[in-house]
């Protein structure tokens, strides 16, 4: 019964989405208030029914309803309850339903929190979002229905993929999707502006908070994904430039450019066509990501197992949305030029450079991701493009960007006089250079050019990000405090600096050691002693495992015990490595258990990962900066 309710609710949601998509757009065209007001009502209605549908699917999981095919494929009687809930979005159909729910949620948020925005604009924005909802709801109902029945019902399910039986699954996809889907709001604002032909500084001011929040969630989602892969997949890597990872990273890069471009449009009415194109790109890349992951067109351990029919549907949807948006763009963008100017040394120039470098970076990632497919379709055979290429290609635009980050922040709008500018930045530059050379030497004993560049860049960003907040903190009586916007910006940039430290240090000084060990033997890695004290069998709720106990010591002093496991889950029988990790603020000690070799020996992989936590801490600080930046918006007057 409950699955039927869930499906019926989804159909009702589709009907409401059609109303939400069509009527307000007509209303805005005719300036008909009644039709435009349908927008808000339809939105809340759609959200209500999608939520019911999602709840029904969740209940089916909690009730172990194996007469529902999706539940039978991804759950099991013995599966711990929290994982039964997260299993709802663990595969294609359920995660699609979650996407639809989040889209409805964002639309409702736009409907609720736009009191100061003109009715025609909001009607169009909600209308566009409604049309997007229609597309996804049709996709679900026609090709990917989570409520399909299994007849006869299974006695027990096929179990959730053991890799996903982890808290990471509970948090990573929702955060990621809130980000991905959130860019549809900026997209909708862009379409609305192109339809009406009005794109001004107010439009940018209304669009920016939505974009920043979506961006912040996407930042956290990607960071969590990276962290999860690190501790779950067992090989100690945190980014592999896998197509699916790239699919999440490209919208992030465009979103970052968009936030900065919106700042210029808001401030000076410039870069309007840039901003439009970036808003279109960010969401288009989200859709592209959905296509790559769910169509079966690429091979990836992250890809959903699905079939080409669904691929064609998503591709058709993607084509309609993107081509439609770009046609509007080609029509409207030429007329958007404004006559405002700026001098060579100005914030506008730096932000333009920022846009250019981020677009170059995104294009390169896209190129690397799609090139194997393109080459194959042009009958060039199969090639692979992996980290060796991506790492080099990505750094080429990124190094200048990261170095100029510190400068742009402190450059005035319109025209910056060179004197005060140099005066401000001279000392930080020297300090950063010193740190860049001394830090690696002092703590890790060596330097190289890349190391110096990386450490300098990190120190440079951290120092320059702190200038404004510290000044504000130490300001004299009566001087203005730093605005939330500027504080958010400083913190976000600071996060970037922390991220760069993490990446630089762990790439340069990380140590990895694969060795055969017997119980009782000790291995020296990176100045620490790792002793394999025991290997034994343990039992989990739905798995059995071989567990190693490894004691870590420094100069004979006890540091920690870690317990790496090799698990075999009862139903799927895959072997899974759970690494034993001892995290501290400035390093991770990572031990993974491999195969049993002859003679009582075991393969053991020991890794020393200095500063690796800063990668994810940096990302979260970036997201925090985003939230702080928009938290002060209430103080702004909203004018129509």
């Amino acid at each position, binding site marked *: 019964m409950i699955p039927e309710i869930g499906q019926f609710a989804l159909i009702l949601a589709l009907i409401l989405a059609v109303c939400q998509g069509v009527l307000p757009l007509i209303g805005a065209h005719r300036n008909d208030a009644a039709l435009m007001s349908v927008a808000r009502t339809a939105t809340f209605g759609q959200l209500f029914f999608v939520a019911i549908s999602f709840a029904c699917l969740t209940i089916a999981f909690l009730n172990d309803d194996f007469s529902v095919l999706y539940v039978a494929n991804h759950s099991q009687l013995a599966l711990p309850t929290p994982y039964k809930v997260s299993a709802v979005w663990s595969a294609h159909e359920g995660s699609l339903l979650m996407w639809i729910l989040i889209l409805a949620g964002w639309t409702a948020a736009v409907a609720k929190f736009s009191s100061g925005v003109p009715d025609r604009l909001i009607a169009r924005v909600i209308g566009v979002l409604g049309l997007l909802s229609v597309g996804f709801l049709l996709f679900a109902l026609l090709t990917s229905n989570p409520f399909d029945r299994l007849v006869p019902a299974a006695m027990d399910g096929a179990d959730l993929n053991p890799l996903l039986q982890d808290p990471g699954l509970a948090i990573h996809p929702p955060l990621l999707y809130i980000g991905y889907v959130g860019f549809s709001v900026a997209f909708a604002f862009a379409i609305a502006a192109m339809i009406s032909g009005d794109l001004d500084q107010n439009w940018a001011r209304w669009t920016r908070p939505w974009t920043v929040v979506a961006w912040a969630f996407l930042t956290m989602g990607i960071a969590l994904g990276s962290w999860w892969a690190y501790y779950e997949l067992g090989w100690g890597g945190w980014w592999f430039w896998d197509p699916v990872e790239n699919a999440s990273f490209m919208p992030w890069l465009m979103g970052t450019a968009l936030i900065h471009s919106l700042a210029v449009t808001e401030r000076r009415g410039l870069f309007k*066509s840039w901003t439009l*194109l970036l808003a*279109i*790109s960010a969401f288009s890349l989200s859709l592209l990501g959905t*296509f790559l992951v769910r*169509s*079966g*067109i*690429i*091979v990836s351990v992250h890809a959903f197992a699905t079939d*080409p029919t669904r*691929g*064609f549907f998503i*591709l058709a949807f993607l*084509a309609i949305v*993107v*081509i439609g948006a*770009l*046609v509007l*763009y*080609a029509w409207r*963008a*030429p007329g958007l030029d404004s006559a405002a100017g700026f001098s060579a040394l100005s914030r506008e120039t730096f932000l333009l450079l920022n846009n250019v470098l981020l677009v170059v970076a995104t294009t390169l990632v896209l190129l690397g991701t*799609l090139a194997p*497919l*393109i080459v*194959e*379709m042009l009958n060039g*055979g*199969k090639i692979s493009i992996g980290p060796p290429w991506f790492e080099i290609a990505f750094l080429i635009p990124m190094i200048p960007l990261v170095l100029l980050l510190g400068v742009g922040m402190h450059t005035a709008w319109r025209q910056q006089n060179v004197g005060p500018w140099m005066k401000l930045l001279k000392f930080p530059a020297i300090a950063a250079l010193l740190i860049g050379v001394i830090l690696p030497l002092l703590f890790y004993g060596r330097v190289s050019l890349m190391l110096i560049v990386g450490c300098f860049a990190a120190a440079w960003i951290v120092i320059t990000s702190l200038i404004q907040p510290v000044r504000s903190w130490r300001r004299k009586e009566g001087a203005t405090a730093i605005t939330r916007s500027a504080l958010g910006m400083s913190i976000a940039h600071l996060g970037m600096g922390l991220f760069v430290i993490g990446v630089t240090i762990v790439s340069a000084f990380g140590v990895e050691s694969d060795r055969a060990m017997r119980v009782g033997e000790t291995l020296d890695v990176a100045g620490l002693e790792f002793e394999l004290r025991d290997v034994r069998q343990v039992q989990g709720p739905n798995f059995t495992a071989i567990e190693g106990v490894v004691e870590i010591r420094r100069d004979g002093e006890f540091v920690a015990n870690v317990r790496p496991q090799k698990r075999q889950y009862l139903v799927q029988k895959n072997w899974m490595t759970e690494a034993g990790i001892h995290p501290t603020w400035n390093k991770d000690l990572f031990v993974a258990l491999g195969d049993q070799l002859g003679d009582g020996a075991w393969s053991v992989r020991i890794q020393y990962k200095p500063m690796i936590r800063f990668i994810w801490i940096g990302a979260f600080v970036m997201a925090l900066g985003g939230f702080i930046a928009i938290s002060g918006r209430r103080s702004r007057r909203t004018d129509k």
Partner: protein
Amino acid sequence: MNRFLLPLVAVLIIIPIFILGLQSDPSELPSQYIGKPAPEFSLPTLADPAKTFSNEDLKGQVSLVNIWATWCGGCRTEHPFLMELARSNTIPIYAINWRDNRPAALSFLEQLGNAYVASGFDEDGRVGIDWGAYGAPETFLINEEGTVVYRFTGPLNRTLWEQEFVPRIAELKK
């Protein structure tokens, strides 16, 4: 106006590539030896370690080389069809027993029948790698000169045989 059309043009170029991409299997790897001589090898046979199976055996007739193993489920599925082929004397089938255990392999052939003229025993897998094998079962079509004409990955059945092999064999026999 021109430069604002560029993004649209780029998208219009990419979409057909995606359409093509959806119609092909991303996990399938084409063989590097199509049109080239089969890689040189010499293996002890499965049945009798004293005898050898090598490239020489493949010359002089159109033949199949099937890469199989007892740990491969698909090999078990396709073997009855290979038996059919062998019994109908359509084409000689040779085999490379890849990374397997001799007694288990011999017992497999006893149970399901031996469809092969000869099976080379590739214990350490090096010959499999030389042939570019990436997943059993794989079936190679070899012509009279010992050149690789075609490779099929996956379990064979009558439909696939008629679709993929029969036309190619007919071409060779012209």
